[in-house]
């Protein structure tokens, strides 16, 4: 990509323009201007790779990649403070908390991933299409989205639990539906504005087909919004899963999940604060990374959008 860009820019020299910097230099400039964004990027990349590795390891080897087994009960080791052997201490069941937090990245990652790729992306596409064409589809999606968001999310989730029992699947479904509506609402609004642009009229005048306009003009122009909103949807979904698991109505008890760890810490937190601090920090740092990354990307990708979302 970098060479393509410089090759294309080279032709501008014939018109006496100063050579522009390469993509990498541009990235470096953004990085220097946004030190917080760099930290956020490191957090998010670390979290996503950890989550992906744990998911693969769970699916293939049925175990987590961690120094100790995060699930096996080990009573003699229970409720130890942080030490060299157990950097985050151990919990009530004698599990190494550090291992549980490493393994817990799987659930947070999975839920965020499902929310973004099975919920948000299709929802965003629906939103763009319905905002662009504005036919009955638009009406149906908007009204059902309004009905869904009218209720507190937790009530909807509890309704789903009564209907289909608790577990990862139920969380994934509710989070995905919420993300479909979230994505369609935001992208519809952006598509409505985008289609007013003169370059769309120009493309129409040149005889471009509706599909070509949609894929070559509308979608590339709303891409920054898609990327920025995806990171906030990811953050919200990670928070939602941890809240549900914290309430004891999320993933099955015993599963390594940061919300479950925090719930177990509630009882003994007064005497063993490490039980609460480490899972709480894990959730906070990951969500903070995702939110900060979204903010930074918004500033870089599209300065016009600065502060217009949320």
């Amino acid at each position: 990509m970098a060479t393509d860009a410089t090759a294309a820019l080279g032709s501008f020299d014939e018109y006496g323009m100063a050579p522009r910097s390469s993509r990498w230099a541009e990235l470096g400039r953004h990085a220097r201007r946004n030190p917080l964004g760099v930290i956020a990027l490191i957090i998010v990349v670390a979290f996503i790779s950890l989550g992906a590795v744990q998911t693969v390891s769970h699916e293939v080897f049925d175990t987590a990649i961690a120094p100790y087994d995060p699930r096996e009960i080990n009573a003699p080791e229970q409720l130890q403070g942080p030490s060299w052997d157990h950097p985050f201490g151990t919990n009530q069941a004698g599990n190494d908390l550090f291992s549980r937090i490493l393994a817990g990245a799987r659930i947070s990652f999975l839920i965020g991933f499902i929310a973004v790729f099975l919920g948000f992306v299709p929802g965003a596409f629906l939103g763009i299409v319905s905002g662009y064409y504005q036919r009955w589809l638009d009406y149906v999606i908007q009204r059902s989205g309004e009905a869904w968001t009218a209720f507190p999310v937790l009530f909807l989730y509890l309704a789903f639990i009564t209907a289909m029992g608790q577990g990862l699947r139920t969380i994934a479904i509710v989070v995905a539906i919420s993300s479909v509506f979230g994505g369609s609402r935001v992208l519809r609004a952006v598509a409505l504005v985008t289609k007013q642009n003169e370059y769309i009229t120009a493309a129409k005048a040149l005889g471009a087909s509706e599909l070509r306009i949609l894929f070559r003009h509308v979608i590339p122009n709303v891409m920054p919004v898609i990327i920025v909103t995806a990171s906030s949807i990811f953050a919200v979904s990670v928070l939602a899963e941890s809240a549900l698991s914290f309430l004891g109505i999320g993933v099955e008890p015993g599963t390594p999940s940061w919300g479950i760890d925090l719930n177990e810490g509630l009882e003994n937190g007064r005497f063993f604060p490490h039980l609460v601090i480490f899972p709480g920090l894990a959730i906070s740092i990951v969500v903070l990374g995702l939110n900060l990354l979204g903010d930074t990307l918004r500033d870089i990708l599209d300065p016009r959008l600065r502060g217009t979302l949320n």
Partner: protein
Amino acid sequence: MWRYTLRRLAFLPLILIGVSVLTFVLLRVLPGQEPAVLLAGTGASQEQIDAINDSLGLNRPIVVQYFDWLGDVARGDLGETYQGRRDIGAEVKRRFPASAELVLLSLAVSVAVGTSFGVISAVMRNSPVDYVVRLAAVLGQSVPDFFLLILLIILPSILWNYAAPIGGYVAPWDDPWRNVRIYLPPSIILGIGGAAGIMRLQRTMMLEVLRSDYVRTARAKGLRSTSVIVGHAFRNTLTPLVTVIGSSFTLVFAGSVIAERVMSIDGLGVFFLTSVISRDFPVIQFLAIYTAAVVVLVNLIVDLSYAYFDPRVVYR
């Protein structure tokens, strides 16, 4: 406006009947643990389970059960909980004040902190104050409120060996000091967490409004900058703000499950949570239609308030 209100209200019974039929049928038809099995406990015989089903009336046809229940509700009898056979109406009445006070107080803190810092941040745009406020807002949106509430419980006990009173409900007119000690600290924590979203929205809208022509005109005719900001700019950001507050306002009546759970407050949110887990059908049914009614009414009030905050909005 009255015709509009009446038309909207006419839909309310329809929505409530729809929600009640839906919850009633789904609870009984979809697979899931039978309440009688949960009530009988492990190792109960089939006869015991049948006897419980008999006494709860769960072995009758769904249609009969539904109209029986509807008749009772129409007469003001909400029925009894399966667990402990308590009167649901009395239970809701007992739990409501605790839920409402917690959510109202935290909402008040959210609105006060969120709007004032949103305005300050927009007016002092790109200054160090703006950066600090925005960073705090991102932090507020990222750190889960239940983590903060747990820290609120454990940190004082670790640092100063002080355990704040939690749980229970004391009406503010009975023992104001105790009420404040139980409800104010969690409300401030929850309120500051919730302020983050309001602050970001407020800042965005203020920036938009501050660029508009009528603000420039107000400045040009020599108005003091405070009256420009408060009287002209802020006033025009109220409509979206009311929408956001309205969506949280539902929780005043429904209760905040997480906060009640952490602070051991016996409110409506926890009532719903435990009823879902123990599959207490009459409670779930009532709370479902109750929440639906609250959502519809709050949305109506929010819609009507647009006409008050923005005279250009007219309902017919």
